[in-house]
């Protein structure tokens, strides 16, 4: 039983990271109807920026804030420069664009900071949380930050004018434009926020998986699985999906014999396919209806 509780808690902690990645994926999906295959690489790049700032002696939380600002600006810049011109292009061209972005970011990060594995500090420490042996303070911190982020986003989308405008631009772009919302900039804002959320995920997971250019590969796939499970059109779904996927991953790895680390990835993928086939709209998503 202790093992079970332990695995569930550990699952919730990694699930928090998947939830952040899924949230970032959903932000961009809401804005432009495409999955950002380069989301993980963008997050990795942000994490390297944070690391670099800390190497220069900037205190942790300042580095954290500066990285968020930088990522936000970077996300907007990428949208303006590269993906705004592709808005009317077919899905295929966009996927190719995301792959190109993936290759560029990965290669530039590798060249700037090389491919050796780096330690990344955690502000929460790694002692047992509240005297319990089950979960470390860093894991508790990951969960706490993710929940805080979710609450902030909820407040932003529900109670601010600009949040309302972003929701309108995502739901009904034509009508939103008619009532004077600058939908194009709302998309850019979505990109900026997604990049910043991705940066948070990267900074939180880096102490666990260590910092290197390919660190986000697996995390992104779990993020996709979480986003699909929760329904790609629902931020709340993305977070719930993230936690569920994290717990599922850990329990399957513990209790089903023969599923070691090497099969964890195929399991995430089997999950994606199963959800897509059985319930394409996910748990919280709104089904896509085609009008004939």
């Amino acid at each position, binding site marked *: 039983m202790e093992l079970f509780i332990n695995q569930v808690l550990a699952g919730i902690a990694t699930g928090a990271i998947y939830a952040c990645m899924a949230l970032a994926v959903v932000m961009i999906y809401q804005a432009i*109807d*495409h*999955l950002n295959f380069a989301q993980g690489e963008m997050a990795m790049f942000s994490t390297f920026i944070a690391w670099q700032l800390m190497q220069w002696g900037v205190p942790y939380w300042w580095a954290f804030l500066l990285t968020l600002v930088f990522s936000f600006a970077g996300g907007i810049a990428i949208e303006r420069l*590269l993906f705004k*011109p*592709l808005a009317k*292009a*077919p*899905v*295929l*061209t966009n*996927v*190719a*664009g995301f*792959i*190109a*972005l*993936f*290759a*560029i970011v*990965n*290669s*530039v990060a*590798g*060249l700037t900071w090389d491919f050796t594995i780096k330690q990344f500090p955690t502000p929460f420490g790694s002692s047992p949380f509240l005297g319990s042996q089950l979960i470390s303070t860093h894991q508790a911190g990951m969960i706490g930050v993710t929940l805080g982020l979710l609450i902030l986003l909820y407040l932003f989308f529900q109670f601010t004018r600009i949040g309302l405008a972003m929701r309108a631009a*995502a*739901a*009904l*772009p*034509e*009508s939103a434009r008619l009532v004077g919302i600058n939908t194009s900039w709302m998309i850019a804002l979505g990109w900026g926020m997604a990049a910043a959320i991705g940066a948070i995920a990267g900074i939180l997971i880096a102490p666990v998986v260590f910092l290197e250019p390919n660190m986000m590969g697996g995390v992104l*796939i779990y993020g*996709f699985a979480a986003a*699909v499970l929760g329904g790609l059109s629902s931020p709340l779904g993305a977070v719930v999906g993230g936690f569920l996927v994290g717990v599922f991953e850990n329990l399957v790895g513990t209790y089903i014999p023969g599923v070691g680390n*090497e*099969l964890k*990835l*195929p399991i*995430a*993928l*089997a999950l*994606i*396919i199963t959800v*897509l*086939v059985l319930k*394409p709209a996910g748990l919280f998503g709104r089904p*896509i*209806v*085609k*009008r*004939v």
Partner: protein
Amino acid sequence: MSAADEVANEARPVEATPKRAMTLGIGASLVMLALLIIGPMFVKNFIVFQLTMLLIYALAVLALNILTGGSGQFSLGQSAFYAVGAYTSAILIEHFGVNYALTLPVAGIICFAFGYLFGQPALRLSGIYLALATFALAVAMPQLLKLGVFEHWTGGVQGLVVTKPDAPFGLPISQDRWLYYFTLVVAIGIYIASVNLLKSRSGRAFMAIRDNEIAASAMGVDVALYKTLAFGISAGITGVAGGLGAIAVQFVAPDSYTITLAIALFLGMVVGGVGWLPGSIVGSAFIIFVPNIAEEVSKGLSGAVFGVLLFLVIFLVPHGARQVAMVAQGMLGKLRKG
């Protein structure tokens, strides 16, 4: 106008290619063919090997082109079919001593079945969802190949070594050249078959589905059948390419068939021009030679160079090689008149 309508109307997976624009004129085809036949006679064995790989990847890109350019379905998972084809050939040659030429049809049939079956759940997905599902397949494949259960057949992580065939009938040419011409014959056969397929009733059904699925089904096209059929045919051709690849490289291992291969094939199709079959060879050349060139420009930055080139293609020539060929054709026409 709701968001749902936009999904149905605006966000098309691929741009439609008119049927006549899918092939090359007779003159250009003959010139290309002559180049492919004569070229390898005068170069070193290593370059012959690279040209063989060029043809093999061109086949794989062609297969993806039939699926995406023809029937409008996505796949980021072609490396999985390629891997199955390669392993089928390798296992048949090494464990059962089957002649290498005979393993190719088997690889094709097995991959056709695999693709057809995968096409069943994929029926319910479209656009970006299908890209995600096939992406999942490609990422999972190397790990499945490493599984202990199959280790007796697949050789596990170490993979299998395949012996290279000699030229038959005592022909006085090197193994590499023989394999090149063998591949060329297979490639030409498949190319002609593909062109004819797209001209046939089935091909028209594919394109009808690509252009408007609902209209196609209203016209009596069996959408489910033709979509899975497109997946099967594409997987089958990719499987033959994979089998040839295994024979040419003389080695199969799980890590040769990662998502990187699937992405490369996808990029090859985009660069060659979606839906333009002759573009497959241009796309294949791009994915084989450009990484080498990028590596020479700057070591370590090859990914960045590759990505930047890709963005240039997307922005400047969004229809890839097809667009370049059309422009060239237009200019030639003007020269003749003037």
